[in-house]
C-alpha cells in the first residue's frame, strides 16, 4: 500500500476526534506547521502544556491551536448528528419493543453528544449556526463511516459494536485533551458510549446464536463494517501530516496506528466470543509484538468516500439539510413566543 500525500493541499476530515486528510483537495489545515518549526506561542500557553495543565476558553492560545480545535470539534459534532441517520433508519423496524427503546435511547444520546461538542466549539468564539451552515454547504465534513448504508438489522449491531467501539478507542484519550471544554465534553460522551457498544454486541450475539439465516446476516454485517471501522482511525502514521502538531499541542495523545492496533487487539477476542469471523485471514496473534497482526488497510476507498463518492454521502447531507429546514418553523415559533412573553413581562413591569 503506497500513498503519497501532498501536505499543503488537504481536506481535513475528523473522525470521532481524529483529524486526518485526503490527498489533493482544498487547502485547509492552517496549523500544520512543518515539523520542528514551532510557531510563536504565548509563554503562558507553553507553560500550561508543559505542566500538563488544561487550556481554558479565555486563556491565550496560538491561532493555529484554536483553529485546529474548532475544526476538529465541529467535525466531531457533525459526525455525532449525522451518525444518527444510519441507525435512525431502523427505529421503526426494530425487531422488538425492547430493541426499539434501546435504539431510540442510543440515537438520542448521539444528538446529545453533538450538542456537547457544538457547545465546546462555541467556547472558542464560533457560532453553532455557522458551523451547521458549513456542514450543510459541504465546507466541513463528518466521519466517512456514516456514508455506508444500514442494509439489515444486523448492521445496527455491527455499528454499535464496531463503529461505537472504534469511536470509544479514539475518544477515551481525548478525555485528557489539553483543551478543557473538549476534554470535559469527552468525559460525558465516554460515560454514555459504553452502553452503545454493548447493545450492538448483544444484537450480534443474539443473531449469531439464532437461526442459520440470522447468523449469516450477522456475519455479513461484520464483513461490511470491519474495514470501514479500521479506517476510522485515519491514515498510517507516516501519512498523517497533522498528527505531529496535534500531539505536540496535547490534542492528540496516541498515533492513528497505535489506536487502530488497540482496537484490533480488543476486538479479535470479542469476535471469537460472538462466533463470527473478521474478514481478514491475516489476523493472527504475534507473540513477539504482543499484538494481533493484520492486513494493512487499503485507504483508497476511504479517500473516495471522503471526496463524496461513498454510497450514501448525498443522502446523508440532503436528509440533514431537509431536517434543518423542516425545523425552521419550530425555531421561529419558539422565538416568537419568547418575544411575546418578554414583551408581556416588561409591560407588566412597567404597569
Amino acid at each position, binding site marked *: 500500500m503506497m500513498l503519497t500525500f501532498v501536505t499543503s493541499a488537504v481536506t481535513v476530515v475528523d473522525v470521532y476526534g481524529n483529524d486526518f486528510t485526503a490527498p489533493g483537495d482544498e487547502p485547509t489545515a492552517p496549523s500544520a506547521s512543518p515539523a520542528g518549526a514551532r510557531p510563536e506561542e504565548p509563554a503562558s500557553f507553553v507553560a500550561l502544556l508543559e505542566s500538563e495543565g488544561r487550556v481554558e476558553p*479565555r486563556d491565550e492560545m496560538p491561532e493555529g491551536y484554536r483553529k485546529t480545535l474548532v475544526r476538529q470539534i465541529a467535525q466531531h459534532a457533525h459526525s455525532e448528528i449525522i451518525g444518527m441517520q444510519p441507525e435512525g433508519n431502523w427505529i421503526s423496524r426494530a425487531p422488538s419493543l425492547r430493541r426499539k427503546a434501546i435504539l431510540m435511547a442510543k440515537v438520542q444520546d448521539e444528538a446529545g453528544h453533538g450538542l456537547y461538542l457544538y457547545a465546546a466549539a462555541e467556547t472558542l468564539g464560533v457560532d*453553532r449556526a455557522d458551523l451547521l451552515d458549513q456542514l450543510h454547504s459541504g465546507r466541513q465534513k463528518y466521519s466517512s463511516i456514516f456514508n455506508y448504508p444500514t442494509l439489515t438489522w444486523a448492521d445496527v449491531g455491527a455499528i454499535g459494536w464496531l463503529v461505537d467501539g472504534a469511536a470509544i478507542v479514539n475518544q477515551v484519550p481525548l478525555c485528557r485533551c489539553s483543551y478543557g471544554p473538549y476534554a470535559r465534553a469527552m468525559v460525558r460522551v465516554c460515560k454514555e458510549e459504553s452502553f452503545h457498544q454493548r447493545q450492538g454486541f448483544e444484537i450480534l450475539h443474539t443473531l449469531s446464536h439464532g437461526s442459520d439465516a440470522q447468523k449469516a446476516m450477522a456475519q455479513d454485517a461484520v464483513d461490511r463494517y470491519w474495514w470501514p471501522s479500521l479506517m476510522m482511525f485515519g491514515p498510517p502514521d507516516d501519512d498523517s501530516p497533522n498528527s505531529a502538531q496535534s500531539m505536540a499541542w496535547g490534542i492528540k495523545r496516541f498515533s492513528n496506528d497505535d489506536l487502530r492496533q488497540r482496537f484490533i487487539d480488543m476486538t479479535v477476542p470479542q469476535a471469537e466470543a460472538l462466533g463470527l469471523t473478521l474478514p481478514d485471514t491475516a489476523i493472527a496473534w504475534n507473540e513477539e509484538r504482543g499484538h494481533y497482526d493484520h492486513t494493512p488497510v487499503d485507504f483508497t476507498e476511504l479517500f473516495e468516500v471522503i471526496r463524496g463518492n461513498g454510497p450514501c454521502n448525498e443522502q446523508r447531507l440532503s436528509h440533514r439539510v431537509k431536517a434543518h429546514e423542516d425545523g425552521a418553523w419550530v425555531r421561529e415559533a419558539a*422565538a416568537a413566543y419568547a418575544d411575546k412573553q418578554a414583551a408581556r413581562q416588561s409591560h407588566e413591569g412597567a404597569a
Partner: protein
Amino acid sequence: MSREPLWEVFIRSRRGLSHVHAGSLHAADAEMALRNARDVYTRRQEGVSIWVVPASAILASSPEEKDAFFDPAADKVYRHPTFYEIPEGVEHL
C-alpha cells in the same frame, strides 16, 4: 433566522450537594432552556435540580489579570491553620 441565546446549565446531582456547572445549550427562553437541560443533561438521573442562567448574565474574571486579581491572597499564609506553631502534645486545637 432563529434567535436562541446561550444558557449555562447548573445541576445539583443529589440533595446535600451544590449546583455544579454541567454545560450549556441554546434555547429561545428560560423555560425551554430548562426543559432542554433536563433532556440533555439528566437523561440518566444525573440531577435532582437544575438552574439555567443566560450566559450573557455571567461576569467572569479575566485570565490576563489572573495574577493581579488573586495576588492579595498570596501573602496571607496566616489564613491557614498550618501557619501556626503549636507546642508538642497539645491536642484538639
